[in-house]
């Protein structure tokens, strides 16, 4: 099934000049998202996950940022569009759910009215019709007794319900692509499970594409079909979920997988990634990860590896050869399994 490509990002760079130097928040990113899939972006804080998506929505201040590259969405390059031209797309075909449901709803207005406003922004609809549509959406996202809850203020909602309301708001215009930026980070695990289920159901019912940004590899393993691992504004590798977890090709991904304690098995001693992420102003030469990489060798510190598909539909950016990688990962995995058993 060849799915329609919704979003294509080509060599995107977002640089913020500051008095201390240029912050390279996103530094040459290429990926694409198709309809009907959940594309997970995973990385630590400051790796450029959110900036990428805010750029797509035109939500970064263009006066303060240098943006280059292309973000092609439904045949139009979003980077070149002016704010005026973006407005009909933003919130309509392309919508977003933010991390903090506590900060994203206006505390002075009733939840229902806020959703009605979102509807009437793009659609010429009477208040009455908009209200019907809102009730429909609120029940679709699983808010109990939507008719009563419609008139509540955000503080009367729990965290999970607020996130549901945000999802309802994002869906008002049947978008093609939904960007969810850490949608469950502020929520408890049992509520997180509810919201992830909801996003998955919405994706299937509305047949849309979803970009899910998260720092939690566990969430990615649960819901994503494709995964991009980001580090310091660059893509380390992009692959299907199974490939990322079973045959990861980048030392950073290896490090991530080994440093996370899981509920399944008790591991004797985690293997942390030494050091700390680099400053985005003074990025290391060559591969951004090389100062922390236990497998670095000669070209790593002065030659930046390109994100390349070396066969197998699994683009990655690392100087190691495929054979070396298979050998190293095999050894590391054996080590891990040995300790676990």
């Amino acid at each position, binding site marked *: 099934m060849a799915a329609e490509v919704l979003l294509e990002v080509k060599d995107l760079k977002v640089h913020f000049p500051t008095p201390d130097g240029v912050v390279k928040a996103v530094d040459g990113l290429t990926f694409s998202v198709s309809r009907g899939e959940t594309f997970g972006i995973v990385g*630590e804080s400051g790796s450029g996950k959110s900036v990428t998506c805010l750029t797509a929505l035109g939500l970064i201040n263009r006066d303060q940022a240098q943006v280059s590259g292309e973000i092609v969405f439904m045949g139009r390059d979003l980077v070149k569009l002016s704010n005026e031209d973006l407005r009909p797309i933003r919130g309509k075909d392309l919508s977003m759910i933010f991390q903090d449901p506590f900060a994203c709803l206006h505390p002075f207005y009733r939840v229902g009215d806020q959703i009605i406003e979102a509807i009437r922004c793009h659609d010429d609809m009477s208040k009455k019709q908009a209200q019907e549509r809102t009730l429909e959406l609120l029940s679709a996202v699983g808010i109990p007794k939507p008719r009563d809850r419609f008139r509540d203020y955000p503080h009367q909602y729990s965290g999970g319900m607020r996130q549901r309301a945000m999802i309802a708001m994002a869906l008002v215009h049947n978008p093609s692509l939904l960007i969810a930026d850490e949608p469950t980070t502020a929520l408890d695990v*049992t509520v997180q499970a509810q919201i992830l289920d909801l996003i998955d159901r919405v994706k299937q019912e509305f047949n849309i594409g979803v970009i899910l940004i998260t720092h939690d590899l*566990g969430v990615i393993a649960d819901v994503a079909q494709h995964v991009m691992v980001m580090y310091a504004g660059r893509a380390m590798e992009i692959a299907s979920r*199974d490939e990322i977890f079973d045959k990861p090709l980048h030392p950073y991904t290896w490090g991530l997988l080994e440093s996370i304690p*899981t509920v399944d098995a008790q591991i004797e001693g985690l293997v942390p990634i030494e050091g700390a992420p680099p400053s985005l102003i003074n990025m290391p030469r060559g591969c951004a990860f090389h100062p922390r990489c236990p497998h670095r060798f000669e070209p790593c510190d002065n030659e930046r590896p390109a994100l390349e598909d070396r066969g197998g539909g699994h683009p990655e950016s690392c100087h190691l050869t495929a054979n070396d990688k298979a050998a190293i990962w095999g050894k590391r995995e054996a080590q891990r399994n040995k300790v676990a058993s």
Partner: protein
Amino acid sequence: MSKIETPPEDLVRSDKAQGDPLLSVEKLTKRFPIKRGVIFQKQIAAVHAVEDVTFSIFPGETLGLVGESGCGKSTTARLVLKLLEATSGKITLEGQDITHLKRRQMRPLRREAQMIFQDPYASLNPRQTVGQVIGAPYKIHKTEGETKRKVQELMERVGLNPEHYNRYGHEFSGGQRQRIGVARALALRPKLIVCDEPVSALDVSIQAQVLNLLQDLQKEFNLTYLFISHDLGVVRHVSDRIAVMYLGHIVEIATAAELYSNPQHPYTAALLSAVPKGHAGAKLTNRIVLEGDVPSPVNPPSGCPFHPRCPQARVKAESDSEEVPENCRTEFPPMGEVAENHFGACWYPLEKGGDFQRAAQA
């Protein structure tokens, strides 16, 4: 020193436990009053933050305390260190009843029990240098010897550069700041350290560094940890025993391996199944998704606090007229031994695996 009366839960011991409990807590309860009125304040309700919590920690082990936000984990931590005054119950530290000690009487005991806080950005005074922050315990307790040298040794031990003695908190990254917090807690060589979500604010790659540091220090100084976290993976990794909290109550307590392989309380099972497993092949479909939200601790449900959301109770309800068995609704289930070294507070503990799968499908 009088022998401490040990409640039945204390029969649960991990392999690491030695001798008498270092800290034990009996029927600890904390209610925060909700008041109305300006001058003549009247208490109109109370937040039932911690209810009848009983547990003990033995020297050298780690007790994990896990639960969702608002379940009373942090309040428990603050109560055992007497940063909050308990409403009722008894706290015993090293055989001494500290429940009603005054601030000044408590001070010498603070050498024995220290705390590491969640937010490394908020827990360091921005106007103090690292040296001052880590040296403060020495100053307060008027210890002899050269403070600077001691502080620098500590900094070295926790993985900080001792030359950074005169730097301020903001000059460090999140992981390094948490190391400063660890060094401060370690300064007086306490026996017990209460870690309140020590790695929640850190990135995963840094999180592992701090967890490993805490484990190394435990071995080196024979520390005892009360480790609080909402992250079940982290808790499993560091804990010898784990207590699960829900709405102020401990609902289950067992050794780590036992709790994860054989959860007896339906809440524990639901919590475990809700955690993303972090590997491919874990499917969304076998997950038990609890309905609704955690009820308000101002009006906790009668009987078992979990009964309104409990899938097991629905399975067990005998007649069709009632949704939940009567004892679940009316009476809090006593903490009973459901398996060896494994205590749970549930009227209908799960049988290994079986029951719950059916419950999930129902």
